[in-house]
């Protein structure tokens, strides 16, 4: 009844192409931003930060990154874990080599390094498509993990082969290291998510985004109307890897604090992020958030209900979770290939007519 565009007239093309054309949507978005920045930091504790908010925010960045590549540009990638590892190790090397430079720059440069690596591994996409490209990126995943295990320079010759983040501060407040407050971890992740989601939205609504989608939907027609496939595909790999690299840097430096490459950035991470965008919705920024939230919250919820509520043994609950995720992916692929984002869109369409659908 309240959710409709009647009376909300657009008088310029700028207004017509804004992100939230319906007034209620816009207000909801501002409310969420306000709560995220001004309310949650004061309420958050260690449990909520480590179990829910920080992983959700960091996985959102990774999911947006992969969604740009797979959902928008149509290039399937199974190398997300490997690219996250590149971001993490780049960040670690930068943090230890240049301790006087601010961590924000380290994280951004890590993204840049990952973008370069991603472009190099994206070169085969000019020749191969679909499953074959997926396998090529899977090779990148295995190669990168192997590389970071094999070459001691990457983990500064530490005996355990682990990397651990030293304490770094932003405006005098620790954001990495063991003494970081929950709200500081949350805030640095949130700022990165906010800026990167905005950048992703801008890129996907302009020419670059249309080039990516054109390549995804019909590459021959795209080329005929003047899209050069080489820069279009490589820019998708670069932007995607930039996002994934920043996610990897944050995941290691802010969330984990210490990481072993095979464990933290193995192939299961690539699949986890891929599941996020499949369940959340391919080709949708909102879907990336929805998928990340779903895959982060589901284990927490199941653990609380099954172990805490019903008293199941932990290992049984863990097995059940794997089965449930598998079943959900199959159900989504069959029933709603466009994921939660599409369900949300359909709900909104219905809401616009409610309560008088005829």
């Amino acid at each position: 009844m309240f959710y409709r565009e009647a009376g909300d007239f657009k008088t310029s093309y700028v207004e017509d192409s804004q992100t939230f054309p319906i007034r209620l949507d816009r207000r909801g978005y501002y409310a969420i931003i306000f709560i995220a920045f001004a309310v949650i930091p004061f309420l958050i504790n260690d449990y909520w930060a480590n179990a829910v908010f920080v992983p959700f925010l960091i996985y959102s960045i990774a999911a947006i990154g992969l969604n740009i590549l797979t959902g928008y540009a149509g290039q399937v990638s199974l190398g997300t874990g490997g690219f996250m590892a590149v971001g993490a190790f780049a960040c670690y090397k930068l943090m230890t080599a240049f301790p006087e430079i601010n961590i924000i720059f380290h994280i951004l440069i890590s993204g840049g390094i990952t973008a370069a690596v991603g472009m190099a591994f994206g070169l085969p996409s000019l020749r191969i498509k679909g499953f074959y490209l997926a396998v090529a990126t899977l090779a990148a995943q295995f190669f990168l993990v192997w590389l970071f295990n094999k070459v001691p320079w990457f983990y500064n010759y530490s005996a355990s082969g682990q990397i651990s983040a030293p304490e770094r501060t932003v405006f005098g407040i620790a954001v990495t290291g063991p003494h970081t407050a929950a709200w500081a971890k949350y805030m640095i992740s949130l700022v990165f998510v906010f800026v990167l989601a905005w950048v992703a939205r801008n890129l996907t609504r302009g020419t670059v985004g249309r080039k990516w989608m054109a390549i995804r939907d019909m590459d021959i027609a795209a080329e005929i109307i003047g899209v050069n496939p080489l820069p279009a595909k490589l820019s998708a790999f670069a932007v995607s890897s930039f996002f994934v690299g920043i996610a990897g840097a944050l995941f290691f430096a802010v969330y984990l604090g210490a990481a072993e490459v095979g464990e933290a950035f193995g192939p299961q991470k690539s699949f986890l992020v891929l599941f996020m965008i499949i369940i959340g919705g391919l080709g949708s920024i909102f879907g990336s958030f929805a998928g990340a939230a779903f895959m982060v919250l589901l284990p927490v919820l199941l653990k609380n209900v099954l172990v805490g509520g019903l008293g199941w043994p932990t290992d049984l609950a863990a097995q059940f979770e794997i089965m449930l995720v598998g079943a959900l992916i199959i159900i989504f692929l069959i029933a709603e290939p466009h994921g939660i984002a599409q369900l949300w869109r359909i709900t909104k369409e219905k809401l616009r007519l409610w309560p008088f659908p005829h």
Partner: protein
Amino acid sequence: MSSLTHKQEIPEGGYRTPDGRIIGGVLMDLKHITLRFGGVVAIKDISFDIREGEIRAIIGPNGAGKSSMLNVISGFYVPQEGEIWFRGQKRPPLKPYQVARQGVARTFQNIALFKGMTTLDNIMTGRVTKMKSNMLEQAIWWGKAEREESEHREKVEEIIDFLEIQAIRKTPVGRLPYGLQKRVELGRALAAEPDLLLLDEPMAGMNVEEKEDMSRFILDVNDEYGTTIALIEHDMGVVMDLSDRVVVMDYGKKIGDGTPDEVRNNQAVIDAYLGVVHE
């Protein structure tokens, strides 16, 4: 229209059509094009030209090599022999996107729209060759990228008005009926403001009403924007009514070239279409 133009001089290589339009000089000249796929000769030593402002039809029975010819022009195939001259210059072998940047746009026989995108986005994509803001400007969106988007949106809205598809502006094209999809595809090609527009069977699979609409759009494009059009079509009524000159192909060879009337009375063409007993 004719009253305004009848005093103009006819440029070199040009001519005056029966309805009084002035056709200019040669825009594209195809010289001795031969295209082979392994042992199969798809196009055998074909030469013809396309002049500025005319509607040029390519006709012929199935498998005659018409679509291959269009693919040669749009840079999709590189012919083994022959030269393509465009605007008085010999064209080196180019990739399709480079040909597009020279001002050649086309539509496809079986619709090649971007199915996941809206009508508006599809037509906006047609303007990629004209949009200049770089990725950084687009990432920030303030300033140049936003301004450019609005400017091009204005042009695209003109095309949407012209093709009378305002109502489906924000509909994903995958949901549209066939006739409208064809129209959106024409819009996407027009968005590039091409000098030469290639239409591969623009009326295939349409009913009479849709064909009439499409014919009207083709004539209007030619008239209002002065766009040169080369089209392939099987409906002879449409071809003879629309086009200024017709090339007839059969088995990869050119068997006729001239005005619709000349072609209609050409014995080789009649034989190709009606079939003759080969001695």
